[in-house]
């Protein structure tokens, strides 16, 4: 299929210098690499395979988003880039899998994201306690919603 697409595109003369297997596959890999950070996948729907997701929640909770951002920012501000490098490296294996939005290979990434969220929460508890409490309430709500959907409405 991909070879067919490449050949079709290359049949158009001006496109020849831009379309080749290297550029095509590089784009496909990059696409899958950044699928890991797609908000819809992460927080709302998860894996496309119904046996690996309830399709009503993502692999991590939306309440963790501000915490992850706070965590990442605190690492960057402190000049500590190792956890970020780890995140970047762990996102490579899923980018080589043919299936889009595959979850099993992304589990290590979620662990690092959870670590960032925990760091963000620690920081937030010290500086903006009200926000931390609100996010924890949202987290608990999302958790109960996930359990409810999993136990009551999930029929893989």
């Amino acid at each position, binding site marked *: 299929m991909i070879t067919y697409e490449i050949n079709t*595109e290359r049949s*158009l003369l*001006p*496109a020849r210098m*831009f379309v080749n297997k290297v550029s095509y596959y590089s*784009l496909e890999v*990059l*696409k899958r690499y*950044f*699928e890991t*950070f*797609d*908000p*819809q996948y992460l*927080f*709302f729907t998860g894996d496309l395979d119904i046996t690996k997701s309830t399709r009503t929640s993502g692999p991590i909770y*939306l309440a963790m*988003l501000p915490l992850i951002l706070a965590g990442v*920012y605190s690492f*960057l*501000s402190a000049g500590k880039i190792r956890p970020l490098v780890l995140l970047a490296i762990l996102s490579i294996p899923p980018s080589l899998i043919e299936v889009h939005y595959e979850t099993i290979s992304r589990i290590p990434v979620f662990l690092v994201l959870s670590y960032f969220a925990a760091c963000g929460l620690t920081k937030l508890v010290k500086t903006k306690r009200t926000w931390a409490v609100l996010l924890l309430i949202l987290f608990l709500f999302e958790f*109960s*919603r996930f359990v*409810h*959907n999993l136990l*009551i*409405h999930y029929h893989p």
Partner: protein
Amino acid sequence: MKKYLVLAVIFIVALTLRFYNLGGFRCLNWDEASFGYNAYSVLKTGADEYGIHLPLQFKSVGDYKAPLYIYLTVPVIKVLGLTEFSVRFWPALLGSLSVIVLFFMVKELFNDRRLALLSSFFLAVSPWHIQFTKAGADVGVAAFFTLLGIYGFIRGAGGAKWGYILTALGFSASIYGYFAQRLFVPLIVLFLLFFYRREIVKTKKSFLTGLIIGIILIAPIVPSLMSGGHEEKILKTTIFGYQRSAEYLNLITGEDNSKILYYLFHSGIFENSWTALNHYLNHFSPSFLFFEGVAGDPRQFVYRMGVMYLFDLPLILIGLYSLLKSKKKIKYLILGWLLLAPIPAAITKDQVSARRSFDMVYPILILSAYGALAVWQRIGKSLKVALIGVLIYSVIFYLVSFYVFTPPLGYKGPAGWSCGYKELVSFMQPFKTGGGEIIVDTSYQGPYIFFLFFERYDPAGYQKQARLVQENPNSLGEGAGYDKYSFRPIYWPRDRCSLDRIFAGPPERLPEGDLKSGEVEILGRVYFPDGEEAFRVVKTVLGPPGGYCEKIRATI
């Protein structure tokens, strides 16, 4: 003048990219045909296609359109005639001028000429911006005025007496220009009021002048904001009009034993809000921004590209980080603008919309330019050459994709560029003089508006015959017909037996196997630009006695 030489070159680049083959780079879509024909109607009769005198919202193809773009197009049609170029003139011109406004805005905000030039250049070559300022999109016109309004506010807060007047003009025009701006403009105004609250106190006299002018300008449209048409538009496009299916509700309530759990996790208000949140965040997804754009919508996407270049991805991240780290207060303005811009798109039914989130393009490109400048200052000569190489490669790839790969994917269908109608209208002209009724199939939506547009049909004549047929309140509807034309779905098992009628429709409506000689005469075929058959035109004739049609005719 010398100091503006680079800006002039960037403006010429913007102008060239937007005006090159403007009339023919894509077929005319039905939105553009509606804008164009209604402007023509106003020019000839002072009323819209339904005969309503100088309306502040135009109903066309059953959809409501904001008035500014249509009224702006009137003088262009007067000078250049009713053509594709005329319809696309204003978005292309104002899109090119946006580059200049952005330059002055960024220069004012950051006091950095290089950043201002780079932001302008990024806007000039932006796929997102070109997409909606090259085609006849009302959002391209409205977004220019929004940008002007924000720039005016910044200058007004900085002490320029004309600043707030420009804001009043810009924001009012924007509200008249596009429905999504009616949500975004109030949001950005509130944000600007908060952001510049101290400066406003210092410039309260000119602020009040601007405010009064703004209120006077907006006042005429307020009644139409409360009208049934506006409500219908909101219900048709936003999640507020979304009704969950009875099947879904039965399933959920059947499985949930507790009403508390149902209201907690499945109430309509919760699910709609959750969906809106999902849609909001989709506008920041790498897939939308850098890889696929709005993949399902041929009018919004460019093949194998997002709405931005891939090279923007690292630049935006670096720009964001550098800006957050800086002590400039202005960072909150850029981030606030960026975070508010997708809200109109988030509350609509589409998962993602490049059109309704169009106001994101300015702050996100400022971030990209900020990142590019940060990188530029830290790298050596060879890397600079490589960076320029990547930029040139990306722009050329975009142009190849835009002009070569993308068009064949969007020739067909109501969501696409409606190719084939221009040729069909031209083909039908000889048949208008003799014979019976001409029936045009509505599978590709809105044929009546294309016939009106390409025939340059006298609006006064159409206004007397204008009739909209809607299958249900949620559908856009169709113009029923005029003169000998009838626009409706063709049902060939029945229609093949009508006598002395001409039918024009896609091959699936007029299957080759059912076009029997002696029963029908094939008058001709119209093709899409890639050679695929778009329309068949056939005439029914009296077939031999007996058989299928005789029975059917007895029932007609």
